């Protein structure tokens, strides 16, 4: 089958690899019909996440049809022929954490749990195509994928809804939604959201769905800010203003946003001397993460407010404004998305016409174009917000 492999920093390649097989009784094999490149894949592309290995298949946002199930899969929950969206977090459904609905903290799904423990104390769940530290599972930017604990994660999708409307239930829609939910929104709240990529855009819409009165979106690309504006947000292009924090104060009567959401993560861009320092440290491998957005979110947040962090961080940060965090009585909420909590209710929102997630798509291309799309997405060229790959199409781009 064709699969998108990481062959080194900024080196992606579509390789012919053997088809996946059932390895454990509760596995299933899915024939993939749509798969996407996620913003968090760009951290892998840039070589910033430890324990990635040449030849690893990436991709964790995919859906398709079940073509094979292992002997241990509960046939009432999943059978051959089912059309499913596969969540990016892998969860067993049996451990303490799964039973607490903390699906992305599953205690059993990461065979390399001890690698993550060295860095984080405890290991989160395994993820598809996202480093060996997080399981080393082959990802879904391919024609087929092996899905462990297949009777727990995959969500059945009725026929009649196009892939494009539901494929984002695999990650970014629930991730944006949980980010907004973590903002602890009360009616009338003002939410500031850093990053107008796909997660940020879903977070904006989710914040409104959850009762926010104002959403202020921050980015530096006008085409992305335009999409935020379309979603109902007020916008700030941080490259065009002197001081984002001061502007947020001015916009809120010096109170500050009730919640600040970091939908950017470890590869944030910002301005000033701190940017130069953080970038240098990252290049020298002294600090894996560039925490400019997180710092700004903490400083900007109103007293007693909430900072929500769906953006991915991998390791350690310097100059954490702990004083502001402590003295202002801020709550911070974080985590990989607890997918199985959100997929079904969000599918119902889609079915009920409350939201059409396909608004986020900017590129639909055959899988062979994946390597160049990584670069275009990373460099924010061609007004790229979201790339959907067709694993079975051949030749040039079908539509742009």
């Amino acid at each position: 089958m064709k699969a998108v492999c990481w062959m080194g920093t900024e080196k992606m390649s579509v390789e012919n690899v053997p088809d996946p097989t059932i390895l454990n009784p509760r596995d299933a094999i899915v024939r993939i019909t749509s798969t996407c490149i996620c913003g968090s894949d760009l951290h892998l592309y840039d070589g910033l996440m430890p324990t990635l290995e040449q030849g690893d298949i990436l991709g964790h946002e995919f859906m398709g049809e079940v073509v094979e199930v292992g002997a241990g899969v509960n046939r009432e929950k999943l059978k051959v022929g089912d059309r499913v969206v596969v969540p990016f977090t892998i969860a067993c459904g049996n451990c303490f954490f799964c039973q607490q609905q903390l699906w992305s903290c599953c205690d059993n799904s990461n065979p390399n749990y001890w690698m993550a423990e060295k860095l984080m104390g405890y290991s989160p769940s395994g993820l598809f195509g996202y480093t060996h530290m997080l399981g080393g599972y082959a990802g879904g930017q391919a024609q087929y994928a092996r899905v462990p604990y297949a009777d727990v994660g995959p969500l059945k999708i009725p026929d009649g809804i196009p892939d494009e409307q539901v494929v984002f239930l695999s990650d970014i829609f629930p991730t944006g939604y949980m980010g907004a939910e973590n903002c602890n929104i009360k009616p009338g709240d003002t939410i500031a959201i850093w990053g107008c990529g796909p997660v940020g855009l879903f977070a904006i819409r989710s914040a409104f769905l959850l009762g926010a009165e104002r959403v202020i979106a921050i980015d530096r690309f006008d085409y992305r800010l335009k999409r935020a504006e379309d979603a109902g947000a007020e916008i700030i292009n941080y490259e065009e203003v002197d001081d984002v924090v001061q502007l947020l104060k001015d916009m809120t009567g010096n109170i500050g946003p009730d919640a600040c959401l970091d939908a950017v993560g470890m590869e944030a861009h910002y301005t000033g001397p701190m940017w130069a320092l953080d970038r240098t440290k990252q290049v020298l491998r002294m600090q894996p993460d560039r925490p400019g957005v997180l710092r700004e979110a903490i400083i900007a947040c109103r007293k007693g407010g909430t900072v929500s962090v769906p953006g991915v961080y991998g390791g350690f940060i310097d100059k954490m404004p702990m004083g502001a965090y402590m003295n202002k009585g801020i709550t911070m909420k974080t985590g990989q998305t607890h997918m199985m909590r959100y997929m079904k209710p969000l599918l119902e929102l889609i079915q009920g016409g409350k939201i059409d997630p396909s608004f986020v798509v900017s590129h639909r291309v055959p899988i062979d174009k994946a390597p160049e799309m990584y670069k275009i997405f990373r460099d924010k060229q061609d007004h790229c917000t979201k790339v959907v790959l067709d694993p079975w199409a051949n030749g040039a781009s079908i539509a742009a």
Partner: protein
Amino acid sequence: MSEAARIHLENAESRQHRLSTAFRWSALITGGALALTGLSRRSKSGLALAAGGGLLSWLGAQAGTQQRELIARSSILLNCSPEQAYEFWSQIENLPLFMRHLESVTQIGENQSHWVAIGPLGKQLHWTAEIAFDRQGDVIAWRSLPDSEIYVDGVVKFRKAVGDRGTVVSVFVVYQPPAGSIGNAFAKMLGKDPNFMMRQDLHRLKALIETGEIPTVEGQTHGPRSGATAVARVLNPDDPIKGQGKITEIADARRRAS
């Protein structure tokens, strides 16, 4: 003192044990070097130096003759009742399903069982063990009988966890590897980090009891690997830092499970 605190204390003691090993080797090497330097000087002070060096290496060698003993211990929370965990463990034929170094365990009598472990390079080690103490749903202790190729004594306890969260299983095992090359190799394999090895075993037990399978990526499809990765794997197949060890180890567990 809580179980965890006791384990930490005992781990500190075993670190001291490793320190004494370090002393032994540094004494042997430094002593040897001093003796050689002293002899090569062909003078009275040189002779004194050589004598001092000889004494030091003798001390080092003496420190090395004490009985080798390796201790592995760990504990883990299982999402099941103490009775279920006890039940699974007391079927000792189950142990090789999750214990990496075990090839098989066979019941050979009321109280006795025959154990086969795989040492380095696939060498087998055999021993016979008897149950020393057994309290239903609570604790099992076993000890190896005389004339075993390796002495392995251990105890496993099952305690109900607070907050109705299941069972904390804690294991304590003492290994006395035999003299000779196989014993040395086995000791080396265990000695890298016996606690880590036990923890890996318990993690597999947890997955097996809770989900019915042991998570794995061994044998899955991937793109072309680099030569450097292949070489690193061959050079050090069970380095717990690089993350390659688990692959062979899961393969072993899977082979036994199938």
